[in-house]
């Protein structure tokens, strides 16, 4: 029974890893540079595994979620700055994901986009209001597994496996180094999006994890995100095999789904769209909750879906307000894919302020006792912190220099 539960959690984590940022950046990176950037996905996935494991462990042992740690460690002022940055990026991401849901629904149904935005918002609101936390995770996690169709598609597209293997070795084989760096930063940002750790750590508290669950934590982070990274490889390979040198930029979710349609026909297309729908829908809910978790934790309010809606009033009000704000943003007609690119790049800037407090708390023997970071977690954590810092400093200049990846 225990093994069964762990397996369920891992499956949900695989399906939950990919969101609109991963879809856009992986396929676009494939279209621009073939398989050259696969190694960056590996770097990003190991990073999210390292920090998610830490967050889950901190939450299980000390019942502190990310923004509890942020406020305690960097203080009120810097914490408030981090909160504001996190909330802005989070709202942008939420709007992008909701727009993605509406695009998928339009591609599946042919109905007008704006009505589908409204339908998506109402559906998401109802699901969060009615369905329990466990089931939300399961429904969207399992639905997202339809994305595995991209793995089949990647094989069916018969890529040059030698080139694919070479992509896992860091190398630069292009004259446009700036664009290459821009995509590398975007891929790292998409894999290590901060809302993933906000949601993961708060989710651990939602599910009542304690020190006995540290095995589940490790398995979820390692296998769930690891296999989620495998989906990212598949997306980049389909992008590379299909669009490289075609002068087509897969800027629309529909063209991302083409990656499955070309080799597998109508069935591939429908599975891809359903997978994208659940992945992006699940990410909408993750970002929605994350926004409410962050604010409530920083302010010290009662929070969590494990309390009833009325049991955590300001938390509930916060996610309702965020949903309305997201509706307003998407209704302006802004392109969700463009919004995604901005959200991912800006999120990279906010990464160090999110990850430093986690590293500090995970090291604090006063709370963590014998569960504090070991040498491996510390070496990896510190290494990644340096990487994150470098990437966050270069993100905005690269975005400007490449005209948001258009050069």
């Amino acid at each position, binding site marked *: 029974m225990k093994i069964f539960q762990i397996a369920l959690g891992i499956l949900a984590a695989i399906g939950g890893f990919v969101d609109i940022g991963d879809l856009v950046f992986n396929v676009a990176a494939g279209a621009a540079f073939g398989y050259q950037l696969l190694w960056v996905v590996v770097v990003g996935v190991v990073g999210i595994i390292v920090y998610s494991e830490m967050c889950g462990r901190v939450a299980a042992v000390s019942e502190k979620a990310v923004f*509890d740690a942020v406020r305690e460690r960097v203080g*009120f002022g810097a914490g408030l700055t981090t909160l504001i940055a996190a909330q802005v990026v989070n709202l942008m991401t939420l709007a992008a994901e909701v727009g993605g849901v509406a695009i998928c629904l339009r591609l599946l149904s042919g109905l007008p986009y704006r009505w589908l935005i409204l339908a998506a918002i109402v559906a998401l609101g109802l699901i969060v209001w009615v369905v329990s936390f466990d089931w939300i995770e399961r429904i969207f996690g399992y639905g997202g597994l339809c994305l595995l169709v991209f793995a089949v598609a990647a094989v069916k597209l018969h890529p040059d496996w030698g080139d694919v293997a070479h992509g896992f070795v860091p190398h630069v084989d292009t004259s446009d180094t700036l664009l290459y760096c821009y995509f590398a930063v975007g891929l790292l940002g998409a894999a290590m999006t901060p809302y993933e750790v906000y949601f993961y750590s708060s989710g651990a508290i939602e599910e009542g994890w304690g020190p006995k669950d540290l095995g589940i934590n490790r398995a979820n982070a390692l296998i769930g995100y690891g296999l989620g990274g495998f989906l990212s490889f598949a997306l980049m390979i389909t992008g590379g095999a299909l669009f490289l040198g075609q002068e087509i930029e897969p800027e629309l979710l529909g063209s991302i789904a083409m990656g499955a349609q070309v080799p597998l026909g109508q069935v591939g297309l429908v599975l891809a769209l359903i997978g994208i729908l659940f992945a992006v829908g699940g990410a909408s809910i993750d970002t929605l909750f994350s926004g409410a978790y962050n604010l409530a934790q920083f302010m010290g309010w009662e929070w969590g879906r494990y309390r009833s809606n009325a049991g955590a009033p*300001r938390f509930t009000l916060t996610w309702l307000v965020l949903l309305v704000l997201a509706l307003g943003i998407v209704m302006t007609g802004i392109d969700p894919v463009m919004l995604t690119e901005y959200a991912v790049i800006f999120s990279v800037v906010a990464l160090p302020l999110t990850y430093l407090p986690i590293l500090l708390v995970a090291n604090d023997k006063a709370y963590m006792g014998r569960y504090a970071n070991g040498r491996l977690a510390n070496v990896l954590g510190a290494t990644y912190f340096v990487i994150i810092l470098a990437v966050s400093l270069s993100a905005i200049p690269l975005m400007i220099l490449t005209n948001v990846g258009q050069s």
Partner: protein
Amino acid sequence: MSEELDLGLAVLDHQLLDCDGRRCGNVDDLAIEGGPGEHAEVAAILSGPNVWRGRAGFLGRIAARIGGDGRVRTPWSEVAEVEAHVTLKKRAPDYGLGRLDDRLRPWIERIPGAGR
């Protein structure tokens, strides 16, 4: 509570829990009593937006203005336990903590399914 505590790291900015485990605010600041040369003692925990005013300069003042005038003083003698969180001896309403949640709750409860 005779053991040593680093107030800056172990108490300030930590979550307050009432005796039922309800999250009811943060340790936004501490009131410390004792003049120069005297023995300094923590007198109370201060919580609420009004307290932020003095904590983060310009940003804190804006946050305080948006947050309103709420300020709750909880005597340090009401602290039951300082661990990962700071736990109080009685229920939140007994100290005037979590009042906004209590005021908002009846409105949320009017929506069907609020108990889910």
